[in-house]
């Protein structure tokens, strides 16, 4: 018996060491510490922070950027960047509303239209980067302008409202007490986790970010993988547009300005290397929630909104500075 107890103690010791090891080496460690620190600070600053309602509210607020950040994580892991997600989201939402309201087609067709817009522009980005051999920052900057312009042309610059009532379910509905957008976001994260960690494609995404030449020369179809990550980013932008359209109950061609930057911030705060090859999708979720808590908390505390941007910028800078040499 005592022998077994010794073994147990030894394995418990190993377990503790493994846990410590994990804490110091996992890319999730810093984002988690950041999340806890910021939450505790907000809890002290405002009595309302640690209420179920408020926390669910935070998650609901981050859902749109959180969904955009999933596709962004795929792109950044390969060493690219996608600046077009905010504009693609706006165009997808506008087109969805247009199909439902202006063309009078069923809502399902409208949602399909949004997904096709996202997929199409994502494939366009990917094709230009992978086969056109252009830097993703330039390609997606161009796409950003094109998508934004197309949305404004189609709508004449005005929101398209008058959507069927059930569309609001995607934006403000609840299952039990959990907001639907939160559920959509978490499902997307779960799928992304499986794809990145459990499929050959996911390994190839990391390999391209780690060393694209080595991956290509070993026989990985790097161009197809790059095409796919931009397509994924386009699709998550479309999914985000469905949530946003449900919340606004209209197609807004001017929606999502600057959201690409929030998505990038979430990815980077989540510990993903901007040069690619390293990072976890769970980190991105933590990064997105962290951003959301900052927004929410600074509001609760009553800080001037202009000042909030400055504070957020400084916190991102600080986080990256601390995480710079962290492995």
């Amino acid at each position, binding site marked *: 018996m005592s022998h077994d107890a010794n073994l147990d103690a030894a394995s418990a010791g190993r377990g503790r060491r493994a846990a410590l090891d994990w804490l110091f080496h996992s890319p999730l460690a810093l984002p988690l510490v950041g999340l806890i620190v910021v939450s505790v600070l907000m809890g002290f600053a405002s009595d309302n922070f640690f209420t179920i309602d408020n926390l669910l509210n935070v998650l609901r607020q981050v859902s749109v950027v959180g969904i955009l950040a999933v596709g962004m994580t795929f792109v950044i892991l390969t060493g690219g960047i996608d600046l077009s997600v905010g504009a693609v989201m706006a165009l997808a939402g506008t087109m969805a509303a247009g199909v439902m309201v202006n063309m009078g087609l069923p809502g399902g067709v409208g949602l399909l239209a949004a997904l096709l817009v996202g997929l199409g522009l994502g494939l366009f980005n990917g094709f230009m980067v992978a086969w056109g051999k252009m830097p993703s920052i330039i390609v997606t900057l161009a796409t950003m302008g094109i998508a934004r312009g197309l949305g404004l042309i189609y709508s004449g610059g005005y929101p398209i409202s008058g959507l069927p009532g059930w569309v609001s379910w995607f934006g403000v509905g609840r299952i039990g007490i959990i907001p639907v957008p939160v559920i959509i976001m978490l499902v997307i994260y779960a799928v992304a986790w*499986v794809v990145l960690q*459990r*499929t*050959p494609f996911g*390994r*190839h995404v*990391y*390999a391209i970010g*780690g*060393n694209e*030449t*080595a*991956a*290509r*020369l*070993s*026989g*990985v*179809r790097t*161009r197809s993988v790059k095409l796919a990550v931009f397509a994924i980013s386009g699709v998550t932008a479309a999914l985000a547009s469905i949530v946003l359209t449900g919340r606004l109950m209209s197609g807004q061609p001017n929606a999502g300005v600057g959201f690409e930057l929030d998505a990038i911030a979430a990815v980077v705060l989540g510990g993903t290397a901007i040069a690619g*090859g*390293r990072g976890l999708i769970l980190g991105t979720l933590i990064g997105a929630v962290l951003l959301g808590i900052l927004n929410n908390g600074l509001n609760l505390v009553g800080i001037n909104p202009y000042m909030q941007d400055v504070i957020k910028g400084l916190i991102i800078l600080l986080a990256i500075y601390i995480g710079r040499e962290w492995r």
Partner: protein
Amino acid sequence: MLELKDIRKSFGRIEVLHGVDLQVKAGEVHALLGENGAGKSTLMKIVSGIIQPSSGTIIVDGQERHFANYDEAIAAGVGIVFQEFSLIPYLNAVENMFLAREKKTALGLLDRKAMRERAAAILRKLEVDLPLDVPVARLSVAEQQFVEIAKALSLDARILVLDEPTATLTPAEVEHLFKVMRELRAAGVAIVFISHHLEEIFEICDRITVLRDGEYVGSSTVAETNIDQLVEMMVGRRIENSFPAKPAAKPDAKVVLEVEEVQLRRGGPVSSFQLRSGEILGFAGLVGSGRTETVLSILGAYPAARCKVRVGGVEKRLRDPADGLAHGIGLLPESRKEQGLVTDFSILQNVSLNNYGKYRQGHWFIDFKKELACTEDAMSQVRVKAQGPRARVDTLSGGNQQKVVIARWLNHDMQILIFDEPTRGIDVGAKAEIYQLMRDFTARGYAIIMISSELPEVIGMSDRVCVFRSGGIVATVEGSAINSEEIMTHATTGRVQHVA
């Protein structure tokens, strides 16, 4: 001139230099020898102030010195030319030489004329003629090296460290470099020369210091030693003959790859060759003679003007190395770190890189058990020495890293393996292992193309040799014609047929 006493260096808890001594006199070329990982580069980084020793003494000109950084070492007269150059590719030679030390006119503007004259004077003294106005990226590797040396001299270096300067030079360029080194020696400069080519040591060096596993093994004058003795000092054991025996020629073996024509550039030479099952076909030639580009063209990774290939008798158009994989052609690239490995990945993930298609579970997912089992099997086939399949590849020695890249291809139904400089930068013992592996593979029916810039390797390993010059094959030799005179003659004087 330069004296190191009992230098020790630890990284964390691991000591990598265990008390090394080195004495370099003015006006001598001093060889620093040792296998990879012996501590040569670490020692040279200490000499040049890039890292600091944990203990020990550095004496320059009879004075004890502590270099806190590279600049202090430069001020004391130490110059170093690294394996990887530190030149800015888009600046020209003059701008590089005076980077951060620009000469200025009275108005504070760049004094381009003065800098150019000084640069030209230094290069003239070295009897090096290179264009001063083009970005250094457009210069040859040898010319870039001369720029580095000139830069060190422009800083009045009296102790010059050359870290494997000949690794990527052609024989003619090496000769030129040696001429420059002899002139510097005559001018009283102390030169530390690091090279894996023992023949070069005997040609240019005066004295030798050998390191092994971070320990000082001994010093000697060149005249008092010989190659066998040096190899023994380096590896601690005598290596008789590192090349395995060649099997008997099988001229009737099946042709697995037929390159009907390959033309790298429009207007350049057109080459063709055949590769037979079970043979090692050597690709010899000077650096830049088009060997790597030729194999990359076959794989669709280089935009050749023309390339017509038959694999197993059927004409194929490969557009991507992935097509090569599909047709049983695998590549061990020239540069392990840049082209072979994902250095952030474990051994497991690196070996699996092109194998995930085989480890499927329910079509979409990775079968991790199968991945581990197959990787362990591949690792044992090539005898990778590591803590385990989950060790990061950047913790491995060069030889083991190379084996990891080879292991990647073993779970595939491969017929053809292309080894591009398979033993570059790896130590003597690991070289012998790689050679044996290559013979094991051919015995199993693989056909191998081996690109090598080391003539003894080409001669010792190849069943047939294609000699390249100026972008095309100028001769194919076999049997007793595989000797250094024959190959060098073709490589340096072969007639190139240009086809429009």
